[in-house]
């Protein structure tokens, strides 16, 4: 299959906080402009339809997927792909930060932000529900797309799973607040340096295009830095938008670059998802206290990784009394002996001794 060249338009806008209809009008205008300019894909930033720092406004600007305003925007995408972002209210009234793929007049895919930063200057989990689903989506562009929202990209599994699921272009829409102005940073802004490193690395490791659209403008105290980018599957930056400047920026790419890169550098071919699943299953069991954790202290309670300095008479409370590990009583695993033995073995021995004891009772 021959893929035609694709013009990507990055809508690096400054949404007005809480003013849905104004932002919607801007989206419509820019979609028309991008189409007139020959774009095949138009990407808007995270919460481009609502603004970012909504707090209790979130419920007031939330829309359902059957909202006519969203349909009216989709109607502008005949022969065009667009990624837009808004507050989505589910049928059971949870609020999500969502990004939707609109194509040929329809809503083709919705991604709900998986990771909601609630630390430092962020407070998203207070106001939003986290998504549970990550899926690559087919598109009219002839390649699979992988949608992600801002913080989703600070978790390695997200780009990896999207690529394994068939995405050849990862699209991250962001409202990234600029901070850390230290003069030692490459572009004078720590946040920008971090993001640039991230998305080049993801492009290279997933041998996919990465499209990053970050907003500009100000919500309250925080300024968003823009710097939207398109990165080739080789990790090379094809385009970097100016910092802090509003604009609609066009970038031409050849989607055939994905094939070339993946033939040259078959990293995805060599991925071993079944192995990753096995190890993840084990790690989840350990963290859930359902399996022995090899990196925990020898006699730590299941689910905890630090043991109290001395072995307790009673367990901390994660297991029933009968099943507790009271090695001190049977002498086989005195603290001194346990210290001498391999930590994991000692724990196993204690488990065995306890199982025997339980059987006796």
């Amino acid at each position, binding site marked *: 299959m021959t893929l035609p060249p694709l013009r990507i338009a990055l809508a690096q806008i400054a949404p007005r*906080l*809480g*003013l849905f209809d104004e932002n919607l009008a801007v989206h419509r205008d820019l979609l028309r402009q991008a189409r007139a300019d020959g774009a095949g894909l138009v990407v808007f930033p995270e919460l481009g339809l609502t603004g970012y*720092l*909504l*707090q*209790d*406004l979130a419920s007031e600007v939330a829309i359902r997927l059957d909202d006519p305003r969203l349909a009216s925007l989709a109607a502008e995408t005949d022969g065009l792909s667009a990624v837009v972002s808004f507050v989505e209210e589910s049928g059971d009234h949870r609020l999500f930060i969502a990004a939707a793929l609109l194509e040929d007049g329809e809503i083709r895919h919705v991604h709900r932000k998986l990771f909601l930063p609630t630390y430092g200057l962020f407070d998203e989990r207070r106001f939003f529900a986290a998504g549970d689903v990550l899926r690559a989506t087919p598109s009219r562009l002839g390649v699979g797309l992988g949608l992600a929202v801002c913080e989703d990209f600070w978790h390695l599994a997200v780009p990896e799973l999207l690529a394994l699921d068939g995405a050849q272009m990862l699209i991250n829409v962001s409202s990234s607040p*600029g901070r850390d*102005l*230290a*003069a*030692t*940073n490459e*572009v*004078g*802004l720590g946040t920008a340096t971090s993001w640039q490193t991230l998305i080049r690395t993801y492009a290279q490791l997933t041998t996919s295009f990465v499209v990053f659209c970050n907003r*500009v*403008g*100000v*919500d*309250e*105290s925080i*300024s968003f830095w823009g710097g939207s980018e398109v990165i080739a599957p080789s990790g090379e930056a094809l385009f970097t938008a100016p*910092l*802090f400047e509003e604009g609609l920026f066009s970038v031409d790419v050849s989607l055939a670059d994905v094939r070339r890169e993946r033939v040259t550098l078959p990293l995805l071919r060599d991925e071993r998802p079944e192995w990753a699943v096995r190890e993840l299953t084990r790690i989840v069991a350990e963290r859930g206290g359902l399996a022995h954790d090899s990196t925990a202290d020898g006699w730590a309670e299941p689910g905890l990784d630090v043991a109290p300095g001395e072995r307790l008479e009673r367990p901390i409370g994660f297991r029933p009394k009968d099943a507790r590990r009271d090695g001190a009583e049977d002498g086989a695993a005195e603290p001194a002996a346990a210290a001498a033995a391999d930590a994991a073995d000692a724990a196993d021995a204690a488990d065995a001794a306890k199982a025997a004891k339980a059987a006796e009772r």
Partner: protein
Amino acid sequence: MTAPQAELFDLPVELAIDTAVARRVIAQFIQGQLRQAGFERLVLGLSGGIDSALVAFLSTEAIGAERLLCVLMPYRTSSEASLVDARSVVDALGCASEVVEISPMVDAYFAADPDATPLRRGNFMARQRMAVLYDRSVTWGGLVVGTGNKTESLIGYTTLFGDSACAFNPIGDLYKSQVRQVSLDIGVPEAIIRKAPSADLWPGQTDEAEAGFSYPALDRLLFWRIDKRRSVDEVVALGFDRALVERIDRMVAGAEFKRQVPPIAKLGPRTAGVDYLYPRRRPGSTRG
């Protein structure tokens, strides 16, 4: 010809920022604040010191001199040099300015209380200036822009509802050393950058003499303790005197109340600042 930075002030290397980025962020911050509030003009109190001079320059860069009013509010003991320096900023920018003597207002209040301490007088002057600025906010039709820096806010070297009162503050996250760095970059008159910082509440007063430490050292300490989350032991290992570190820690903790909105007793279902949380400027909040 501008003197090189090293000749004018000491800039700790870890505090150096990209001034072009800072100016860009601050300019759009000012524009954003005005747009969200539905205002087009700004008013500020110009003391002749570096902080308010820098804010005047930054405001001019963001919205143009014709939309800025600088109010000079000397008290009879204020130094003549302060007024001269303040005028040099107005001249350099070409913005509107006005002199409002606060001596009659302040003296009228203390006439019945001649033994009032310098601290009380200083605080009263700061609050009198605030009252004038908020009145001019109406006559000029502009928001009051704050001029306090991060260093003085952290150690509490401000008057509550006085010099710290404002609609928004563009330099409140810049340490004094960084205020100097941006000031040099944006063209604040050298005499202002060079002189010793002072609240100018009584003759000869300087911040550093009053507090007993230098700004570059204090800025460095605050940067490592607060921005970089270093423990007391860790900053002592960096070379700071333990007694100074502990004293500054107490000042920072003691000034927490000055940096926050006063708590409201929680009684009803939704309480401002607790579980009624809206952007300060939101749809419907603009004038007119």
